[in-house]
């Protein structure tokens, strides 16, 4: 009975949180929150995170973290710009996805073959990415062609979002690729003893995460109009917070839902937007975000299988 109640709370908490935020901000911002322009802003701001988070769900499902996202985004952007000179945007998109898959594979191989924790492998990519983009941005201006700014609109992002979700949702929910991630996340040893090629499925998860990161990197370039030293900064934390707010279990496993990427990203940006509309002191905004994050982890984290020695 207790467990059923707990899992019900875990299930509804992300939705309830988002609805509560929407209601609170709608009633306390003189209607500014629900103004069409503001809602459009929130959607536009959250879509890149949503896309990156969507692929990251595969990695989190098998109980890993992808810390390469921010640096990887920078690396993909810089290398794809270098390779294509931004002359042809469709080609650039393809190159971004390929480089993204490459980043994912490198992280996975370091993790799987080198038996190094995935977050450390991801951090390697993060540092390499930052180093490469800083070096390149120092020596060359990497602006996208002026006409690329016409794509910097929500409709353009939305098309990518729909395509990414249309591929990832069935892949995660209805194919072996997704199901195995959850199985590995629930009990990797049992999965391995059952004959599951754990390493192979982890590599596939990182490759998918890399592919969506490639798309996110491409859209970030379109949004800011260039490849800058700071491109992708903080993407890994944004995605992690968004997925947590979306109710993803930090330990992966069967409770992992891909909708967490959607719900969590919207919640995260609604929170930031609403607090700004309140005119809250910037330092307080960080504190409130931290408290909300902690409260979400507290409410949704499954502690039943965790051992704590206190």
């Amino acid at each position, binding site marked *: 009975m207790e467990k059923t109640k707990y899992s019900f709370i875990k299930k509804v908490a992300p939705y309830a949180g988002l*609805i509560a935020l*929407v*209601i609170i901000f*709608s*009633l306390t*911002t*003189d*209607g*500014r*929150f*629900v*103004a069409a*322009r*503001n809602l459009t*802003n929130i959607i*536009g*701001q959250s879509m890149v995170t949503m896309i990156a988070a969507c692929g990251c769900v595969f990695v989190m499902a098998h109980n890993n973290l992808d810390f390469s996202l921010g640096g990887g985004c920078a690396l993909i952007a810089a290398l794809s710009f270098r390779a294509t000179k931004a002359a042809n945007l469709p080609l650039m998109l393809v190159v971004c996805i390929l480089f993204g898959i490459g980043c994912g594979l490198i992280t996975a191989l370091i993790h799987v073959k080198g038996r190094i924790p995935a977050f450390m492998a991801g951090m390697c990519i993060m540092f390499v990415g930052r180093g490469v983009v*800083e070096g390149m*941005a*120092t*020596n060359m*201006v990497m*602006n996208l062609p*002026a006409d690329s*700014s016409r794509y910097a609109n929500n409709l353009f992002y939305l098309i990518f979002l729909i395509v990414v979700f249309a591929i990832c949702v069935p892949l995660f929910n209805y194919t072996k690729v997704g199901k195995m991630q959850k199985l590995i996340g629930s009990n990797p040893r049992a999965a391995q003893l059952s004959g599951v090629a754990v390493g192979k499925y982890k590599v596939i998860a990182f490759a998918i995460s890399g592919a969506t990161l490639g798309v996110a990197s491409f859209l*970030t370039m379109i*949004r*800011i*109009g*260039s490849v*800058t*030293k*700071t*491109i*992708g*900064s*903080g993407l890994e934390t944004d995605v992690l917070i968004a997925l947590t707010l979306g109710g993803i279990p930090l330990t992966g496993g069967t409770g992992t839902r891909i909708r967490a990427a959607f719900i969590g990203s919207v919640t995260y940006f609604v929170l*930031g*937007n609403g607090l*700004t*509309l309140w*005119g809250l*002191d*910037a*330092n307080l905004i*960080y504190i409130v975000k931290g408290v909300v994050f902690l409260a979400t982890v507290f409410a949704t984290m499954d502690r039943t299988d965790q051992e704590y020695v206190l």
Partner: protein
Amino acid sequence: MKRLCAWMLALLMVLPMTAYAAEDADTAHKIGVIFYGKDDALGQCVYEEVNHAAEVVGIEVEWALGDYDTESQLTSVENLISAGCEGIMFMPIEDASAQKVGQACEESGIYFAICFRDILDSGIKSYVESCEYYVGSCWEDDKGAAGDLVSVLAEDGRSVFGLEKMNPSIALAVRNDGFAEGAEAAGAEIVAEYEVPNDGNSQTHINGVTNFLNLYPDMDGILMTTSSQGAAEAIVNTVKQNSEVGKVKLAMFDLYEGIADDFAAGWVAAAAAGNSPDALFVFLALVNAVDGTPLSDSFINLSQKEVIVTSAEECADYEKYIDNPEYQIYSDEMIQNLVGRYNPDVTLEDYTEIMEAFSLDWVKENSAQ
């Protein structure tokens, strides 16, 4: 459960109707400010100056602090516009920020102005300057200040310098040019240089200065384009450990904790700082634009003079009058006189005149409190 869902849906449907209340809820103009933070001395001074000025001229200010990349600054400007800001002042973190923030403002018909930065990229600069809602910008006269720092060393009889050089790709690189031109004008020579590390690694400074001292025994001055992020402490300590007092003197941008003692002991010859009023003048120019009394039909470019500190006594004055968030450099009357609604005769020349007069002596003589 069904009843609860119905109530929630009904409530959500009613919410958009409250949007109409927003139009006439506020009467005071609101200006959004996007700034890197208020945790260091400059940030605190800017925060207090702008808030004070806003109170004096009856403007509401909304801050977005802590954005260190273009994406975050773009998100902030979108949120501030949604929050009802009619003008945006920001310090672009890089050239791309100037373009994207400017574009967001232009598309929304919101005035915007840039503080503390010039735009290096010519394409972005011409785009921003072509925007109808671009009020203008202000940046420090870094080149002039660098020349002044070299002059102080030259007047002390020094002529062989090492240079702690700024990364050429960023706006502050004009300090390199200022030092080079200043040295040429003073008949001095920059014999060696190393670049400020992007990550602020102290070891780079230590290695650079150790090389200066070992390879150029006749070097008698070090020019520093920055002393922040621990650069000053690393450089000063390296000089102290490897040289004698007065043999090699330092001239730098920005002040650091303990600089007064190093002035008194003879390690430091001069420091340039005191640029916080930059944001105040940009803010007031923006207020004029939002009020419908712009200072110019086109965009404006202001130049903020820096203060050259040359002794421990001046350090104390600097800390009391300029580097003090609780002290207002300009009186309420002066601030109001720079805004059209209080002084219809205000012109751009008034701004230039006041900014030209800025010096440590002027601040002391005109102390507002």
